[in-house]
């Protein structure tokens, strides 16, 4: 047995994390640019369209609203607020939708892989298949972006295997978000080295929240404001990360975009918010804080061993 994948660590025991310009809260904004297949082909343990025999055009066409319409309305709002976004990208979207690809590349959005299609789950693959699939994902993105690299990884549909972090570290991925257990970046132990686990959020997250009952945009934005207020207050003590996970087909809808803009107005009226990309936060953390944190974790482990 090697070391645990993730060492337990209470956030309040850790050394203070300081962001650039003494910002309190790092905010990354993550539009999930997804492609759900009309006829999912791979054998699957979960059915992406459980309502009826495939296709289910109700589910499909609502998601297809994203690349045709919702994405464009959302990035217009991003441009208005100079937002530097991090894509959670089903990389097949770049192949299918060149216009969307060009718009994202022109803005230099950070690229976090969200797998190839959101209806293909790597958790179902053998180790060799998973390695090949991750490589293929990287190559597909490099081909369609003109040679840019995927910096981060969020497994399609949030469905990784247990070995995914090892493969990602070998493949040169810098950060990984499937394990959503923290409000700060944290090193994950993998075979080759450490992989940085970035905070991410399925709660709140427009993709998930709007599938639940009783929720509309006003409720969703109210809960994000509550989240922001709390994290902003706590970040007086040590730097924290807030994730705003969005979907163009959800918050890019005409009756919802106004609420998103009101949220931006509110958040950006606060001092000390560092609106950064996933890779910027990760690299700052690695460059300025990781050694300190590892020393602290080693010290805690020694103390535990001595006791």
């Amino acid at each position: 047995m090697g070391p645990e994948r993730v060492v337990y660590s209470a956030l309040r025991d850790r050394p203070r994390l300081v962001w650039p310009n003494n910002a309190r809260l790092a905010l990354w904004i993550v539009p999930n640019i997804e492609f759900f297949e009309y006829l999912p082909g791979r054998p699957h343990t979960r059915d992406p369209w459980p309502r009826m025999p495939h296709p289910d055009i109700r589910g499909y066409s609502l998601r297809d609203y994203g690349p045709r319409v919702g994405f464009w309305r959302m990035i217009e709002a991003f441009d208005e607020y100079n937002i530097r976004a991090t894509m959670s990208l089903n990389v097949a979207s770049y192949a299918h939708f060149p216009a969307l690809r060009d718009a994202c590349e022109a803005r230099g959005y950070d690229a976090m892989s969200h797998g190839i299609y959101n209806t293909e789950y790597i958790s179902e693959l053998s180790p060799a298949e998973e390695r090949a699939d991750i490589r293929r994902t990287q190559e597909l993105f490099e081909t369609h972006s003109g040679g840019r690299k995927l910096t981060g990884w969020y497994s399609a549909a949030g469905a990784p295997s247990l070995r995914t972090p090892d493969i990602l570290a070998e493949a040169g991925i810098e950060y990984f978000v499937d394990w959503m257990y923290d409000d700060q970046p944290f090193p994950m132990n993998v075979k080759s080295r450490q992989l940085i686990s970035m905070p991410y959020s399925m709660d709140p997250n427009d993709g998930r929240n709007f599938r639940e009952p009783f929720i509309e945009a006003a409720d969703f934005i109210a809960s994000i404001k509550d989240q922001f207020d709390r994290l902003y207050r706590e970040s007086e003590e040590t730097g924290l990360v807030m994730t705003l996970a969005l979907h163009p087909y959800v918050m890019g809808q005409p009756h919802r975009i106004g609420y998103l803009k009101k949220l931006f107005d509110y958040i950006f009226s606060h001092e000390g918010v560092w609106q950064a990309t996933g890779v910027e936060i990760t690299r700052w953390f690695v460059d300025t804080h990781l050694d300190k944190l590892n020393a602290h974790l080693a010290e805690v482990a020694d103390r535990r061993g001595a006791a």
Partner: protein
Amino acid sequence: MTVPAPGMDHGHYLYSALPDRPRLLWPNGARLAVSVYLHLEYYEMEQGPTTIRDSRYNSRSAPDVLHHSWFEYGNRIGIFRILDALTAHGMRITVPTNAVAAERNPRLVRDLADLGAEFVAHGLTATEMQHSHMSEAEEARLIATSASRLEAATGQRPRGWMSQDFGNSIRTPRLIAEAGFDYCADWANDEQPYWMTYDRLVSVPNHVLFDDVFTIWDRHVPMVHYPDIIASGARQLAEDGVTTGRFMSIGLRPWVMGASHRIKYLEMALAELAAIPGLWFATAGEVAAHYAAVTAYPAERTREPTPA
């Protein structure tokens, strides 16, 4: 496995980013065309053993008296509340109609026809979705029979088709085109009509988030939000419609929005809607006809998808 290549992963329509399209102009300088889809449906108490229903209606009892009577409440009571609310603002009405519902409710057909409503073919009953386990012959027969029986019951040849509960097989758009329809109202993916790739068939969007079954009945969004959902959606679309015309559909069911505890919120929504400048209230057929008259049909043809 789907191949990551330019365009869609099926052949029914082409990919098109809304900002890249030629400007769409509505009649009289309108910025937003609005169609109200008021469904006239018949829910069978007993269904055949192979019928596949939208799983949201899967009641555990057979016969399904609950849903049958719920829908019938709509046709006896709720629809009149909705018609009063719509006519108060002179709104045009599009009626996706199960042929059996038209045959059983001549009184409603007459009232709707007197109001100038457009009937849209909508299958035989609310309990029979189209799906990929049907054979092509079965599905083609369902489409043809629904259209001819609806025509007999209403005296109007339907120009549009809406599949029950967004039920499609992989063949549906082609079969709709082959049956001679001008448009289908099945897809939730756009804010403008667009061409399907079969024989000049127009897709008039069916905006699922403005559909009462999806948002109110299935997702249980509290009714207090309803006027804002409709009005802020329409205001944003009218604003965006300055650049290029937009389309919005509002899906209503007599048994949902015609209920006594919900009708007030529909009335509020319609009052806000009626006050927004630049709206063109039209039937789906009027929207489709206008689109077809002013937009070039794409030369490119694509392939029909095959099952995995």
